[in-house]
């Protein structure tokens, strides 16, 4: 439970201010899976946040900041027959 609360606080701190819900509500759902997994997800949470912190100093992060947008995988969770 403490891990869960810590992770929730971390997420709240990095949450962007603005939002356009019509774009991709799936991203938040993917991140939530880390919180729900509790302790088992703690290591991944730490690594994920380390990536966020270190991103601006990395070459890739600078490129992204200058406008290079990574495209999402085309997998669509809403497919069904």
């Amino acid at each position, binding site marked *: 439970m403490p891990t869960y609360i810590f992770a*929730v606080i971390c*997420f709240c701190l990095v*949450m*962007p201010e*603005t*939002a*356009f*819900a*019509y*774009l*991709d*509500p*799936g*991203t*938040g*759902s*993917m*991140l*939530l*899976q*880390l*919180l*729900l*997994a*509790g302790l*088992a*997800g703690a*290591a*991944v949470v730490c*690594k*994920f946040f380390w*990536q966020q912190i270190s991103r601006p100093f990395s070459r890739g992060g600078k490129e*992204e900041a200058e406008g290079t*947008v*990574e*495209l*999402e*995988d085309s*997998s*669509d*969770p*809403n*497919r*069904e*027959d």
Partner: protein
Amino acid sequence: MQEEAASFRDRSSRVIYRDSEVFRLLDAQALSAWKDFSSTKFASKAMARGDIIQTTEASAMLASTNGSWAGALQHERLPFVSYPYEWCFGMLKDAALLHLELLLEALEEGLMIKDSSAFNIQFKDCRPVFIDIPSFEKWKPGEPWIAYRQFCEMFLFPLMLGAYKGIEFQPLLRSELDGISADYCRKLFSARDFLRGGAFSHVYLQAKLQKAFANSNRSVKRELSASGFHTELIKINVRKIRKLISKMDFAAADSTWSEYEKVSLSNDTYGSEDQRVKAQFIGEVCEWKPREEVSVLGCKTGTYALVAADHADRVLAMDADHLAVERLYQNLKKKEIKNVLPLVMNVCNLSPAQGWKGLERKRLEERSQPSLVLALALIHHVVISANVPMVQLIEWLASLEADLVIEFATREDPMVQRLLLNKEDNYCDYAQDYLEQTLKRFFSIESVKQLNGGQRLLFACRRLS
């Protein structure tokens, strides 16, 4: 050959019909996924258990296509296709649990279910069966449960609304074919509701996170993968949700018709002898000829649907009362009766054709071909409560091209008197003579039986060809 109108979202495969057979055409990617899936022990075990639709390769089918497909499968044909907005709470719950069980088993063998649409599950022999084979594909290392959001929207949130708030999900799922969003569900929950199992994390937090990251232009999926996301995390979450759902029951205890058997015996509508006579009458009409499908309109808790089930291959038991249908479903499971499919359906507002181009989800009449319709204790509710003219009701029943057992409650009947108690009686068409006269336009009335001292009448009607 005829293409299935609902089979368009996944470009990698297409469902088609030839005569009475069902095929699925696959592109190279889907064919490869099928090979991966069909080579696992999981696939053969799940098909043997009846959890996944029986499927075989049908390469010969490719000869009749235009050459753009790489493979073909043949699926067992289901006699009736139902939709999640026609299921009761217990049916959606069982469908959700089947989806999670299959996902856990698939993960053990390195497979993932790439989507979580409730339409990918059907009911056969009164139990859920998974029908969308191309949903199984190899799990890509580091990939999270992509379909988690869709699972919440189509299964978890509707079940939470039923279990925590006593809200029936059917009207919501009927209008929102892709399910109930986290944000919509959050708005329906009070602060106290967020203290219930899973509500804070799956509903509140998910809604907030979705909103917060909606304009993200980063590939979180790739970042999660790089952070070491592994299948154990998915399994932990799936097991938690399975535990959560398995404890859920619908919140409200009873409704008008869920206590039907007790009520009908206590309020003088019927005596037990009348019930026996009615059951015998229905049995006799069923035996006029072999019955592949019988539809019971306004089945309540299914007393007479079970009578029909003894004489027919399958019975569609429909009622607008969600809890009555729920009671029937639980009873069918308990008694292991397999040829009755309970459905939440209002005769005055049947499932329409809807979805993309109005073709994606079919109207009830298009999916059902009954040879006998039972309309028991129904017409006074349709004509008096819902104000549908008698002639229109009979014309619609005749359009089903089936024999008919119809019950008429006279104006001396206590239920009819109760319905008229606070209404202006302008129902001049609600009369026995007018009913008989209208029936005779389409049917031959073979026999009439009086119940409850003549206050109710049963008509056995043979459809004129």
